């Protein structure tokens, strides 16, 4: 294993220290409760947004804490969802009287630990709502699995719900928007390598030099099927087909496209792929009117990429364009 890491068991703490040090104007780390939170409490009450999940998927959620997105994040250990105590503390921090939205990626551990946190929070005077993000179209919706994973749509939910909260909307409206984003999003991911969790010190699995892994998630588990490597255009067509055949957007729909690297995929390859993905989507009649390209929902040092499409409408587009200032996403401020 070759990584910039000290003690593997301290990987999350050491990362958070670096992140907070680099973004002091935005972030603060509550070490006791293990909560990453906005330095500045919002000037007037707003709906609070809390994200949480296993670490190793950065900048999700840590890099999205700040103006226009999350109020607090609860980072778990690598690939391990946070514990209920963290989620409870993050919720208390995020609450300014208008309630708190929990943004949960649909992974068993995350769902169960947020669930336990909600049992605890039941006894407190905080309105808590939850949205479960499950945009991964690679998992069939047949009840035979833990269900579709929460992948790239998480960023879109946090951005759009965050903008709505910043506007002062009520918890019910923010929740409805978050659910709308989930229901109008789909993601498909392709892995070109496995990844190496620091505590493990070796890759989770091996992919042959001529193989790619279709339908991967974000914590290193193997994907749906291994197929021979193809070129960018072929891969893009396959990915677009997987998402759009499931999402079935209106003809002529305006789409937001998130092209997401899994951690080790360089800028050059991601944008090259983005060009092919946009072309493939537009060949089907839709229009890609917003794009975000980069490593946003990652799986440590895995090579690979995912595409997320969100069927936009005027409201969603406006909230997407609204200002944001976090470690990993910034515009308009």
């Amino acid at each position, binding site marked *: 294993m070759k990584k910039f890491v000290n003690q593997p068991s301290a990987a999350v703490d050491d990362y958070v220290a670096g992140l907070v040090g680099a973004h002091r104007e935005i972030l603060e780390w509550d070490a006791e409760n293990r909560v990453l939170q906005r330095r500045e409490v919002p000037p007037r009450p707003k709906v609070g947004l809390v994200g949480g999940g*296993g670490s190793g998927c950065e900048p999700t959620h840590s890099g999205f804490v700040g103006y226009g997105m999350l109020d607090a994040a609860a980072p778990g250990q*690598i690939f391990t969802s946070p514990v209920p105590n963290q989620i409870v503390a993050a919720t208390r921090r995020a609450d300014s009287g208008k309630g708190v939205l929990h943004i949960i990626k649909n992974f068993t*551990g995350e769902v*169960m630990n947020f669930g336990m946190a909600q049992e605890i929070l039941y006894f407190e005077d905080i309105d808590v709502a939850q949205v479960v993000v499950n945009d991964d179209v690679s998992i069939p919706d047949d009840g035979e699995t833990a269900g579709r994973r929460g992948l790239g749509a998480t960023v879109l939910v946090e951005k759009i719900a965050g903008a709505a909260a910043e506007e002062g909307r009520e918890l019910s409206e923010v929740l409805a928007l978050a659910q709308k984003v989930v229901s109008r999003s789909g993601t498909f991911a392709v892995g070109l390598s496995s990844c190496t*969790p620091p505590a*493990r010190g070796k890759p*989770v699995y091996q992919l042959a030099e001529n193989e790619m892994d279709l339908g991967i998630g974000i914590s290193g588990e193997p994907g749906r099927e291994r197929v021979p490597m193809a070129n960018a255009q072929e891969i893009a067509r396959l990915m677009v087909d997987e998402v759009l055949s499931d999402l079935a957007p209106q003809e002529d729909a305006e789409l937001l496209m998130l092209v997401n690297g899994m951690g080790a995929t360089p800028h050059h390859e991601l944008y090259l792929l983005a060009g092919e993905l946009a072309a493939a989507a537009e060949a089907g009649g839709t229009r890609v009117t917003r794009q975000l390209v980069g490593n946003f929902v990652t799986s440590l040092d895995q090579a690979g990429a995912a595409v997320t499409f969100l069927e936009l409408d005027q409201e969603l587009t406006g909230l997407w364009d609204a200002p944001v200032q976090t470690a990993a996403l910034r515009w308009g401020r």
Partner: protein
Amino acid sequence: MKMMTDKNLTKTDLEGWILDFAGQIIEQHLVLSDLDAASGDADHGSNMERGMSALLKSVPDWDEVATPGEFLKEVGLHIVSSVGGSSGALYGTIFLRMARAVGDAPSINAGLLSDAFEAAAQGVAERGKVKQGDKTMFDALAPSVQALKAKLTEKKSLSEALASAAAAAEAGRDATFDMVARKGKSSYARENSRGFIDPGATSVAMLIRSAARTLG
């Protein structure tokens, strides 16, 4: 070796059990993570190891803890707040439900222990929305509880009953080899999850084997 009877387990007995289990986990955690690597995210061992190491450090300080119920609750809270992931919630549930079942009894007899294990299995089923055959820890836990109950109903000694429970857990663990996962991260691999033993079933089999070794 133990000077107590079969029937009345104290907090100290339970402590012996948990310390033994913790030792096993710490020793075997790489194996557990490797099992999780086959179709999951390769961290079951490190999750459990982190929780058990923290527990070992903290147990000596639990001065207030006197009853078996208090001890089990403390273990459960400790796991919930240090492990994370699916196993944190599930193992936490196991011990918290056992604690609830034994209440403030000063010691636990065989019947109460059996009830406690049954409550634990029930808790896992609820928290995990899981049933037998889904290829999870429940496939080790459920048959072991059935075996324990059956042996005690047959008036066998606790020692014998626990040995039978451990064997049932291990058989349940081994039976996961041929199953296709329907819950947890392994379920994403669908057909490809077949041909591997479930890591959570493996650690639960260790838990019951530890119980047989230390409480029987």
